[in-house]
Structure formats: structure tokens, C-alpha cells
């Protein structure tokens, strides 16, 4: 009889352990700072027992984590590079991208800066260091302070590709850990300029400049009219399975995409 109860208890413990799935998600700060934690909270409320470990330290770390099998999902605000694909292939991992949201990179300046618009060429010249004073682009005289993401960030390389013709950032540019830090520094510095994802455009003390008349909005991003728009991804090892597959499915569901919109990103399809 005692043996029967012991077996029953062991079976109950095993069942409980199996029910409590842990999903490890690593990567992009753009996705991991706000969107994915909110999605995870909502998912948890629908799937009690699921736990999440989310680390948002840049897209590079997310792709590396899937390659090393230390995460089921890698968040990335950029496409995997050929070298990353190669590294994954060597380890028998197939990096599969799934677009989970679109994002627009807004160029932000201090709210006190009278400037309202820049051309694509001016943006390139400012971030590359060719233009160093606001008076050169029609603003009030003052040395331009450039804030960029750090080099492990997908946004760092995406902005170079989208806005700078793959040129290098000015040597004087200051590297920030995340979107919030850039918005915060630009808000404090009257001569500051930076770029952040759509979700961070309404932080206090900053304003968004239009690029040749186009502002980053859901409409301009989805219609691909805004020049600095990009997809954001979950990377998985092939087709996702288990809890990871369910979470990807949830992210792409209407409920998940409503959260995408609510946080400030652009859904992957038109929603009602």
C-alpha cells in the first residue's frame, strides 16, 4: 500500500514538472524590453504553469543563443548574417526566421530643437560625422551629439544599412545599451540626435523628425513608404516545436498582434 502511494506521488510530481514548461527567449532589446515580456505575461495568463526566462541584450546574443541551443527563441531586430547562418549550420542548427512585427526607426531630437524634418542624405551625413553642427542643416548653431545603439544591437547595424549606406558611424558617436537610454540621453541634451524603435517615440523630452516629409507611423511602415522600416524576427531552430511553437503561434494570433500594436510596433497583417 505504501509503495502504491509512493508511486502515485512520483507520478504526480512528474506530471507537474512536465506541465511547468520553461521557455527561454534571448536577444533583441527592441523586442525584449517591452513587447515580448507583455506577450509572455498574456501567454502565461492563458497557459498557467508556463514560465519564461527573457534576456534582452541585443540581436546578436539572440541568434547566438539559438545556435548554441541555450534558448528556444532568439529575438532579433535584424536578419541573421551569413556568418551566423554558417556558424549555425556547422552546429546542425537551421536558423528559421519568423516575422513577428514591423518596426520603424524614428530619428529623434531634443524637444527644444526647432528642426522638424531632415532629408535622407542629411541623416546619413549627420550620423557618419560629415555634418557636425545643427546650423549645417538649418537648425540653431550647436555641435551635434550623436547617440547610437551598441555594436551587438541589431538596430545598430540596421540603421547603418537603412540610413547610412552601410557607412561607419562618426567616431564621436556615443553607444547606448538600449532604446530607452538613447531617448533619455537625447531628452537631456539639446543638441542630441538618435534613433529608436516606434515603441519609444513618445518618450518624454524628445520629438521625431520627419524624413523627407514622412513620419514613422503604422500606415507609412506597412506601406513601406517610411524609409527606415524593418521587420523584426523570432529565430528558431527549424520549425518551432512544443511550447516555443505555441508562443510563436500566440504572437502571430490576433490577440498577440493586438499587443504588438498596443506596444507601438506594426502588426504583420491588417487587424480589425
Amino acid at each position, binding site marked *: 500500500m505504501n509503495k502504491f502511494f509512493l508511486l502515485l506521488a512520483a507520478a504526480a510530481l512528474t506530471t507537474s514538472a512536465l506541465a511547468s514548461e520553461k521557455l527561454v527567449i534571448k536577444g533583441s532589446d527592441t523586442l525584449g524590453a517591452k513587447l515580448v515580456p507583455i506577450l509572455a505575461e498574456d501567454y502565461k495568463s492563458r497557459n498557467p504553469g508556463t514560465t519564461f526566462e527573457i534576456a534582452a541584450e541585443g540581436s546578436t546574443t539572440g541568434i547566438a543563443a539559438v545556435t548554441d541551443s541555450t534558448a528556444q527563441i532568439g529575438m532579433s531586430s535584424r536578419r*541573421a548574417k*551569413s556568418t551566423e*547562418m*554558417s556558424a549555425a549550420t556547422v552546429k546542425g542548427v537551421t536558423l528559421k526566421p*519568423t516575422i513577428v512585427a514591423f518596426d520603424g526607426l524614428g530619428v529623434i531630437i531634443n524637444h527644444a530643437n526647432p528642426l522638424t524634418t531632415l532629408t535622407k542624405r542629411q541623416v546619413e551625413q549627420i550620423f557618419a560625422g560629415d555634418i557636425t553642427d545643427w546650423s549645417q542643416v538649418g537648425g540653431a548653431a550647436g555641435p551635434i551629439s550623436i547617440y547610437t545603439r551598441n555594436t551587438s544591437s541589431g538596430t545598430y547595424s540596421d540603421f547603418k544599412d537603412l540610413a547610412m549606406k552601410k557607412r561607419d558611424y562618426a567616431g564621436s558617436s556615443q553607444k547606448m545599451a538600449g532604446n530607452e537610454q538613447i531617448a533619455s540621453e537625447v531628452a537631456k541634451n539639446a543638441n542630441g540626435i538618435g534613433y529608436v524603435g516606434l515603441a519609444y517615440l513618445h518618450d518624454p523630452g524628445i520629438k521625431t523628425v520627419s524624413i523627407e516629409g514622412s513620419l514613422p507611423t503604422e500606415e507609412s511602415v506597412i506601406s513601406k513608404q517610411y524609409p527606415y522600416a524593418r521587420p523584426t524576427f523570432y529565430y528558431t531552430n527549424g520549425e518551432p516545436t512544443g511550447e516555443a511553437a505555441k508562443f510563436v503561434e500566440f504572437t502571430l494570433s490576433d490577440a498577440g498582434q493586438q499587443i504588438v500594436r498596443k506596444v507601438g510596433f506594426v502588426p504583420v497583417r491588417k487587424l480589425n
Partner: protein
Amino acid sequence: MLNLKSKLLTTAAFLCGAGLALAQDSGPLIDLLVKKGVVNDQEAEELRAELVKDFVANTPAGKLNLGSTVTGFRLAGDIRIRYQYDNEVANFAAATKGPNDDRSRYRYRFRFGPTVSFSKNWTAGFRLETANGATSTNDDFGASGSTNFAKDSNVAYVGQIYLQYASANWYFADRADFRVGKHAHTFFTPGVNGFWIDTDINFEGISEELAFNDVGLKGWNLTLRGGQYLLAANSRTASKAAGSFLNTPSTMWVGQAEYSSIKLVENNSYGTRIAPTIVAFTAPEITGFIVNSEANNYDNLFSFILPVEHTIKVGNKPLALYATYGLNLQGASRANRLYSTSTTAVVYGTANGNPKDYDTMFNAGFRYGALRNPGDWQFTGEYRSVESGAYTSLLLDSDFNGGRLNGKGYIFSLAYNWTDAIGTTATFFSSKAIDKTGPASLGFNKADVFQLDLTAKF
């Protein structure tokens, strides 16, 4: 309506048909397919990933896993197979002629290495080279190894290892080039094999070059070059008694100011170059004694060198007329010392024999044609003379007069390009001693060298 697989296969087949390398540049095409509604965004991403996966798995370039800091990676080198015939007669102070040294040599040269580019105008590189000598990269087939065909006498050395910063519009200059490490130089040295700096030499130290356009006259440019090089570290060690050895390096300093007007016509350079130069050596001494035998080579060298070249078009080919004049301002002292039998003491004014005032060197020659395309040829003729106190055998072209001082004579060379990569050169060097009574270390009584080369560059 095509399903996803069909669309991807159709698009992939099109891209693959255009070459796998296209996969890396197919972004705009895929964007266009999305815009046209042929594929949606997600399908496009899967297509991109598939193409990149194919690229990394099936192309040599894709398999090269370079760091993200690398913006460019170049592998380059050359292989040269040479037949060489030497006929050398040693010099003897007491006789007019020594024994005749007559030999055939079967030689090869191999140089190979990467140049890695980074952002912000930085470059790093290293190169492996055969042979350990500074002025030669030739190794010999049939050299005495442990057994016949053994490899123990065939060794590759690190010939170059350096960092470079090169930029156009650098502050006040129109162009700047800085190198540190063991590297090739950019000094203007007209003549076969570089005459006063053998083309095989890689200097160890720091080189600087600044160029300014339109200086003085429109179309005339000024290029300033400097070099500070380490000849011997002379680092003091515990085994060296205090006072007999200084922790002071022997160094070589070069400064050159080139004034030039060059025009490129059909990829050939025409115009004038004139480049006054100073070459100075330093060697530590203790109370008149050279601190080690190697430093003995460096003393009493402070040379003024003036290379010039003028290139005109003759019969649709460039004809370059060039010359170099060199004067060692301490030539008399150097000749005196080199004529002495002592290798440890500087014996001013007590030379054996009569070195006179052997402080001058020069060359004068022409170079007709240019080697750029298959079928191109070039003919070079040169006369040169290097007096015994004029310079140092450490830097001189090693093929003429064995790279030694106290020699005069001529060189003829004919080169032909079979293809873009493969070329043949036949060169004949003939030299005689200026002073046939000087010591054997100061050049040959007579030296004739013939070289026939087959070279591949890649």
C-alpha cells in the same frame, strides 16, 4: 495561384541560375517580388534565409567565416621558379684575382599572406616568405637537407606583420599612410630590384607618408615619407656584463621628399619624379668601440640620396629614364674602417691599403614598356656604381655584385607577360670591383649573374 513552395522554387531557380553569389545581393530583387505581390513578407524572409543558407553551404566565399569587424579580406602572393648561373671571382687585397666560382642554382620563391581590412581605414596583414635573409626570398632546390627531397631546408618565415592606417583627406594632407610592424616601404627607389633598398626588404619599425596635391605648381604633388626602423634591439641581458653592453638599439632613419608631376594615360604613368632623401644609421658605442659586431655595419652612415625619373611616351609605350646619386657624408671614415682588419674597433685614418675617398654611388638607366596585360614586355638597361664607403650592403640590391660594396657594372633585363598572372624575366648582372686590391668582404673582383624566372602572381 502558385503555392509557397512553387513560388520559392521558381524564384530560387531564377536566382541560382544567375549564380549562387547573387544570393548575397538578392535583397533588392526579393523586395521587388514582395512589392509586386509575388511573395509576402514572411515568404520573402524564408527565401532570403534559404538563399543565405545555400550561399554559406555551397560557395567558397560563404564558407569563410570572417569576424564581423572585417570589412575586407584579401589573400595574395606569388611563386617564382628561377634558374640562376653565377660566375664570381673573389677579390684579394694582395692579388688581382681569386679563384673562379662557377655554379648553377635552381631556386624558388614563395610569398603568401592575407591583408585584412577594417573600418575607419585600418588594415592589418602578414605574409609568409621563403628564405631568412633580409634581401633575398630565394630558397634552393637540391639544397642539402637530411635526405634527398627532404623538406627540412625548405622553410617559410614571417616576412611581414603590420598594422596600417591609410586615409584620403587626412587633416591637412590630401593622403596619409602610416605603418607599424614589419612591412614593405613606399620610398622611391628607381632601378633594378630597387638599387639602394632591395625590393625584398621589409623594414621593422614605423613608416609615415603624407601627400599634398598641387604644391607650387598645378599638377605637381609633394609626398613626404619618413621611416624609423629598428636594426638591432641590443637589449641588455643578465649574461652581459654591465658597462660592456648598452640597452640602446641600433636604428635607421629615412626621410624623403618627393616632388612629382604624374599623369595616368591608358593605365601607364608619365611625368617626372624627384625625391631628395636622407638615410642615417645610429649605433651605440662605448668609448669608441662598437658595442657588438652587428652594429659595426651601421656606423659612419649618413647618406644623401637623390633619385630622379622622367617618363615619356615612345612608340605607344612608356620610356622611363632614371638615375640616382648617393653621397655618404661619412664615407671616408666608413671606407677607412671597412678596410681595416678589426671588427671591434673604429680605426680612423689607419686603414689598410688606400681607400681614398670612396663615398659615392650612382645608377643610371632606362625602362621601356610596362607589364600590365598578356603580351606586354619590358626592357631595362642600367649602369651602377657603389664605392666602398658609399653605403651599406644591408640595403643594396643583393643580385648585383652579390649585394656588396665596391662594385660597378651593368644590368640588362627583359620581361614578358604570358598571361595576367604568368610572366617570364631574363636578367643579366655584370659587375667588377672598383678597387681590386680591397678585401674580399668588399665585393667581388668580378661577378656575372644570369637569372631566368617564371613567375605566377595571385
